[in-house]
């Protein structure tokens, strides 16, 4: 164990010694305040930061107009990041405003190791009333929309203001945040006409001083290039995030309270915080875009801009006619690789050239191009040159690679598998080695209307619909048959009118032969059977009384019921009493019976 501790001590000592030279870092001196606007009665925190040294005594502040100052103490720190050590000391002061107005904290100077360092002056506005972020009272104060603008904003920084078309422009979007909790920050959106902007996909977080005020900064770097010449405006960029505000009874009414109705659906991440979606819009930045000069433009210039080197490789260098050679053309360096196009190959008819395949990395672009020598007389791949415009030198550059010697052999009895003849693999090769197209067709074939397809042909459609209807009809038919077999009530009800029709025909025949007995027998049978089937009753239970009761419940009118009773009574009289009925009586009964059956069928009783 002792051994382990001694090893650990040695290790840390070594590490410390290794890092000693790192202390000899650059020294910076900056002054910052926590707010640029303060109310009377609050305090401003003034920090004097020395980076690169930790043994600097607190400077004595001079008299500052409008403020009384008080030294709070130092705060020093040493950090080791990736083996690099950095030290800093911050001397903190409280500035107490004495009157309202706009005051300037002057520049402070210190001398360290025979060098003088000074800070930038800072302007502070002192007002009456309360201001959010003014000193220690910040937590309990409100946010005004003006404060929000000062507390969170997006800045678009374009490094180059005058560029060429297709020249790469570094673009930075910086989100400045002060005294606010912000979450769920999305990557900014900078869709710009006239520019092609790489999507933002990384960021860096740090603290920075802007106009003497400390901000938390989220920086989104990217690149863009202009697509056309002219005076173009880049921006504004838009960024979406959520503002996190503390809930609770102590919170006073804020301007966002008015927006509650808009954001009624929001929910809190934590119980104590409430989210307010924000869209922050950046400033615009003017960029003047010009075309690369026409003077001195090489013939093979193909919109490539940057500072590049160009290399060329060919493999294999010994081939048979028809075998492929891969040319690797690598453009590397700094610039806009998106617009780097492959060099034009001016090989005449000696090679068959295929479309190049491009592969791009951060600092290079490789074009793989397959070429096929057409003849064994070829001894070299001709020189290839790559031209580009260098925006730093403001001139065109051309890199020419010398011809590459190759050996092309005559094919020996090999007549298939050649890439240029891939279309006829598996077919007999033309003996001459030269191809042509096959002769025209003698017959015109089936002429038809242009664009006419079978599935839009009405006959075809009808043929598709017929089986569908057949199946549907079949389905209902089968269902009906099954019901007739299994449901006697349904079957009887369905058959009742047909049977009644037969009975009516029979009665009519009796009527014509003037046979009263037979006629009334037929009428009685037809009526009883009809109502027995229709109402699913045993035939013996069908009487004038029972029918009267059942049919009255089903809404049959009194007149019809009386007619039924009358017919049945007449039938009974004819059958069982020796009464003579005239033909007129029979016709009357027949007519009545017909009407009753029609009425019952029509009313679907």
């Amino acid at each position, binding site marked *: 164990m002792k051994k382990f501790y001694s090893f650990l001590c040695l290790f840390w000592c070594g590490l410390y010694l290794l890092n000693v030279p790192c202390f000899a870092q650059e020294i910076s001196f900056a002054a910052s305040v926590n707010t640029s606007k303060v109310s009377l009665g609050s305090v401003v925190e003034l920090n004097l930061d020395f980076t690169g040294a930790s043994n600097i005594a607190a400077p004595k502040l001079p008299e500052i107009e409008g403020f009384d100052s008080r030294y709070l103490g130092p705060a020093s720190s040493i950090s080791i990041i990736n083996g690099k050590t950095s030290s800093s000391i911050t001397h903190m002061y409280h500035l107490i405003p004495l009157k309202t107005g706009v005051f300037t904290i002057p520049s402070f100077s210190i001398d360290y190791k025979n060098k003088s360092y000074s800070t930038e002056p800072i302007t502070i506005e002192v007002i009456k009333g309360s201001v959010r972020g003014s000193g220690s009272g910040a937590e309990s104060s409100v946010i005004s929309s003006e404060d929000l603008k000062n507390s969170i904003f997006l800045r678009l920084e374009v490094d180059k203001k005058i560029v060429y078309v297709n020249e790469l422009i570094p673009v930075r979007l910086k989100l400045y945040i002060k005294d606010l909790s912000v979450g769920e920050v999305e990557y900014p959106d900078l869709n710009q006409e006239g520019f092609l902007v790489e999507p933002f996909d990384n960021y860096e977080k740090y603290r920075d001083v802007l106009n003497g005020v400390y901000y938390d900064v989220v920086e989104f770097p990217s690149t863009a290039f202009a697509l056309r010449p002219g005076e173009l405006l880049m921006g504004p960029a838009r960024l979406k995030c959520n503002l996190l505000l503390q809930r609770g009874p102590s919170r006073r009414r804020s301007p966002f309270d008015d927006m509650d109705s808009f954001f009624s659906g929001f929910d809190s991440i934590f119980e104590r915080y409430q989210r307010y979606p924000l869209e922050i819009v950046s400033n615009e930045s003017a960029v003047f875009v010009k075309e690369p000069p026409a003077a001195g433009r090489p013939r093979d210039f*193909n919109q490539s801009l940057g500072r590049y080197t160009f290399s060329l490789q060919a493999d294999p260098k010994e081939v048979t006619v028809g075998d492929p050679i891969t040319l690797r053309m690598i453009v590397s360096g700094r610039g806009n690789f998106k617009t780097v196009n492959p060099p034009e190959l001016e090989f005449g008819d000696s090679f068959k050239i295929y479309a190049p395949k491009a592969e791009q990395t951060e600092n290079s672009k490789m074009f793989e191009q397959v070429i096929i020598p057409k003849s064994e007389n070829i001894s070299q791949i001709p020189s290839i040159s790559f031209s580009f415009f260098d925006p730093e030198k403001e001139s065109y550059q051309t890199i020419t690679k010398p011809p590459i010697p190759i050996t092309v052999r005559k094919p020996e009895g090999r007549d298939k598998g050649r890439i*240029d003849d891939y279309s006829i693999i598996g077919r007999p090769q033309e003996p001459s080695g030269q191809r042509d197209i096959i002769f025209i*067709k003698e017959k015109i074939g089936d002429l038809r209307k242009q664009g006419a*397809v079978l*599935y839009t042909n009405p006959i075809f459609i009808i043929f598709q619909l017929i089986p569908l209807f057949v199946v549907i009809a079949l389905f209902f038919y089968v269902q009906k048959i099954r019901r007739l077999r299994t449901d006697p009530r349904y079957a009887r009800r369905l058959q009742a009118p047909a049977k009644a029709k037969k009975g009516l025909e029979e009665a009519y025949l009796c009527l014509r032969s003037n046979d009263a007995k037979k006629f009334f027998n037929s009428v009685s049978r037809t009526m009883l059977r009809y109502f027995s089937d229709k109402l699913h009753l045993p035939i013996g239970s069908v009487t004038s009384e029972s029918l009267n009761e059942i049919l009255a419940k089903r809404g049959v009118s009194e007149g019809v019921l009386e007619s039924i009773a009358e017919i049945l009574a007449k039938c009974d009289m004819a059958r069982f009493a020796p009464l003579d009925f005239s033909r007129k009586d029979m016709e009357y009964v027949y007519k009545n019976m017909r009407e009753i059956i029609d009425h019952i069928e029509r009313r679907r009783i």
Partner: protein
Amino acid sequence: MKLNLKFQGFLTVIILSLLSGNLLAKEPPAKTNFYRGNILYEKGKYEEAIQEYEAVLSRGLESGPLYYNLGNAYFKANLLGKALLNYEKALRLMPRDNDLLSNYTYARSLIKFSSGQDQGRGFAGFLKRCLARVSVDELSLILAVIYYAFIILIVLSIYWIISKRTVSSAGSALIVLFFLLLAGLIAKNRQYDNEGLIIAGEAPAYYEPHQEATLHFNLFEGMKVKIIQCKNSWCKIETRDKKSGWISKNDFELF
């Protein structure tokens, strides 16, 4: 008897002449244009042959051999893009014609920077290759046959002639096959709707739809492109390697 024979001969001549006259009168002029085009082609008068074939097309008619012959005439007239366009149209109607396939692949091999046809790998590639060998009408017929088989299956199931298990397994297989081929049919139609072919010798593709825009890349005669959208006289296209740019409407023709 002699008179009778004479009369019969006379009648035959009259009927034949009437019939032949009738036939000539009934022959559609479209066919005449086609045969005239063939004669001109044989004589090496390709431009005139093209006019004759185009005359048939201008009547709103089409056929596989017509497009094939027109493609051949354009090929001979050194208009590779137009030749390929007509071969493509012919392929829609007779996708398994060996002469056509041979001429088409040969013409494609002459495209500058051509990289051959890639129909993908795996099952999707297999399906594409299969569908490429079938015309839209044939595919419609196959679908109709599957549909009829399905209907028959339903009828049999109504009468309980076959077991429920057989119905469900055979029915599922038919449904899957049907929808697979239906998807193929839709894809095939969509391909014809939004694919085009470069007919200009060299077609510059720009970043933006105007002449002053920055050149993105060049397309060459005969290359196939997918049309994404059109704006005035410009269309946004996508190449097989997913590069997109704006080209003039005059530089390409839709299938």
